[in-house]
């Protein structure tokens, strides 16, 4: 394999994983606040459909992404309202919404299935920077969606770990009673973070139908939402580790498509499903007690290992009420 191919592959992994990054970071923000938005798979597919439909009818991509974000935020608002105000079970509500959103996308998306010449996000190479050897081709010859995904990773990390509101966000997800004692308006903030997270998930949906997986068909992105939920766990509720998880999944998909051409005798389904199976394996490794013990042997390896694994926010999927 020559260097050019490697560079192209890395660039495509970066691009193809961008929607997943949006979804993972959106979900991470919500879960950090203590709210699980389990509807991801449905939200993404519905947002993908709405984004595509708006873009197709109005040819306005800004409007399309905005509408997709609105869809994501709307579903998230339902989750937030039912869990924070009605105190319903987040998992149950999320599950039902997944199914509902998927079916809605099929129903309303009917007129838009497999349209020729679908609208797409145009490429936007950054002048000067794109000419830097290797790096330029990978990072700066992409489009706005990819750049935004990179900015989002850094911004989420900065917000959570470097700012006072971010620290408070960790607090309300870990121990809402203590965060409340320190002046946080727990339920209001949970609402806000769930909505922000939901709109990022919606953005992820539109970036599939308008960029990574152009067009619209039934169940266009099905499966991605569940992978995003798994990657949030894999990433230990940390935006950078979560993004790495998204890129690993993207990388596995690239590798499997290469492998598919290298081993034409093996049924293609094997390679299509391999990334999912490998992701399960990765999750097992992260959560395995034996491996945990193995790495806890020496202080150095324990440090590295601990920075790699994360615990869920202490109050994840619970409700908070002032006495």
């Amino acid at each position: 394999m020559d260097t050019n191919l490697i560079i192209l592959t890395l660039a495509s992994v970066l691009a193809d994983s961008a929607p997943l990054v949006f979804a993972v970071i959106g979900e991470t923000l919500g879960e950090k606040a203590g709210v699980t938005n389990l509807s991801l798979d449905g939200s993404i597919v519905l947002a993908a459909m709405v984004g595509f439909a708006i873009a197709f009818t109005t040819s306005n991509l800004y409007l399309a992404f905005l509408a997709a974000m609105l869809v994501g935020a709307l579903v998230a608002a339902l989750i937030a309202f039912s869990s924070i105000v009605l105190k319903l079970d987040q998992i149950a509500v999320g599950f039902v919404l997944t199914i509902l959103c998927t079916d809605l996308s099929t129903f309303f998306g009917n007129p838009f299935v497999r349209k020729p010449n679908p609208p797409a996000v145009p490429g936007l190479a950054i002048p000067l920077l794109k000419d830097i050897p290797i790096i330029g081709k990978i990072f700066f010859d992409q489009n706005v969606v990819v750049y935004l995904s990179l900015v989002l990773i850094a911004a989420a990390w900065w917000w959570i770990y470097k700012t006072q509101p971010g620290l408070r966000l960790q607090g309300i997800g870990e121990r809402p009673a203590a965060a409340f004692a320190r002046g946080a308006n727990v339920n209001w903030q949970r609402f806000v973070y769930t909505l922000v997270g939901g709109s990022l998930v919606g953005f992820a949906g539109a970036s599939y139908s308008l960029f990574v997986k152009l067009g619209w068909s039934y169940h266009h992105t099905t499966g991605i939402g569940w992978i995003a939920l798994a990657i949030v766990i894999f990433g230990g509720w940390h935006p950078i580790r979560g993004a790495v998880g998204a890129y690993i999944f993207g990388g596995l998909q690239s590798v499997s498509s290469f492998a598919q051409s290298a081993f034409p005798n093996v049924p293609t389904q094997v390679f299509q499903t391999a990334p999912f199976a490998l992701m399960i394996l990765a999750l097992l490794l992260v959560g395995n007690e034996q491996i945990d013990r193995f790495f806890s042997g020496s202080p150095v390896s324990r440090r590295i290992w601990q920075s790699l694994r994360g615990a869920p926010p202490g109050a994840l999927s619970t409700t908070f009420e002032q006495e």
Partner: protein
Amino acid sequence: MRLELKGIHKRFGSVHANDDISVTIEAGTIHGLLGENGAGKSTLMKVLSGFIHRDAGEILLDGAPVEFKTPAEAIRAGVGMLHQDPLDFPPLRVLDNFLLGRADGLWLKRAQARANLRKFCHQFGFAFDPDAFVSSLTVGERQQLEIMRLLSLGAKILIFDEPTTGISLPQKIKLFDTLRSLAQQGMTIIFVTHKLQDAEDLCRKVTVLRLGRVTGEVARPFTADQLVRLMFGQSLETQARESIALGEAVLELREVCIGDYRLRVPDINLQVRAGEVIGLAGIEGSGQRLCLRACAGLDQPLAGEIRIAGERMNRQPYNKFQDRGVAYLPAGRLEEGLVPGLNLTEHLILAERSNEFFVNWKAASSHAQSRINEYSIRGMPASRVEALSGGNQQRALLALLQPNLRLVLLEHPTRGLDIESSLWVWRQLLERRRRGAAILFSSADLDEIFEYSDRILVFSGGRVAKALRAKETSVQQLGELIGGKGLGIGD
């Protein structure tokens, strides 16, 4: 800051938790708030610190009426509360815990906070690694961290809710020194407790609550008996120790080594005879829990031999230990001892370990009712265990024990219980002992260890001292052993 509470009322449904409570506390003093569990102390303090809203009454700070809607507002006005289980964030680092909730701009000023923390540590003689995780600290250290945090936010009135529960003796001494020095600097300290000894040691004035009302206020010098009468309306008698003839060996540990990934305690040799009570003393986490669990077969010893009534029990499961008359009552009553979500009847059915396929609910329910009466549990056969108070959960656990036990293992049998419940628990245990059971218990309360043990086993820094006869041991001696003196460590 001078604090006045005037005619505070608070109702929860039909319970009048605070019934016309008035207290005045002068600046620069340590004021005790004494009462049994459920006397209304915590409610009053939560009203004062903005956690709950009063139904009626006034709060005055330096003569000016104040109104707190949230705990954050109370802190801004100078009132900070330290909860029994410190309200901090165990998964976060010490520094971030110190910073969280500060209203000073968008950026986290970590460098500034680090210096600030160091200054406070220096002032009180605390030692903290700002980058350590709070989960690695002891309860005592977490309290110290909270004290520094509240002071740094400008608290002038500090409320301590049962701060001596769950901390070791040296930490308690340190805490009391800190409180005294804070009072000298003009802070107003409110010390909420149900422990007479703590109130006597520390407080200049003590207000006693009982069933939501103030039953009296005493100033130094006061006697413990005075306090008891105010707390209970009568003096409590602790019963004289009944000496009984010891039976045959029930439990034998021969060169047993216990441990987990962070601790190793080698060479434990112990023989416990029927009718004997052994107290396990030491700083929390020195191996007492491991030892109890090993004796129950819940953890395997790393080396050595465990014998129950003469039979070697290594590598046997808990139910084999149960068959031989061993029972284990963990400190986490709801977490480990009981099954939240199941009611008392269901617990009893599980505890009977019956082989019947069908459950006779009617019989089980009346059986449960008779146990409830026998053990005076405040609850119904259909009450779920998580709805019971701590004392009633412990009563329920005792009610679930089989009638003829050889060995009862208890971890912190009276932790968090009020005096009356504690006495009741021990009456039950001593009755078991009279019927020939041996008792092995761990406790952080040295008074409890002295009062009930025949012999005391001290765990300290990965070592176990030879069992001491309780009658021939002084508090001084025990304290030194717990601190690691005389065990070949640190001397």
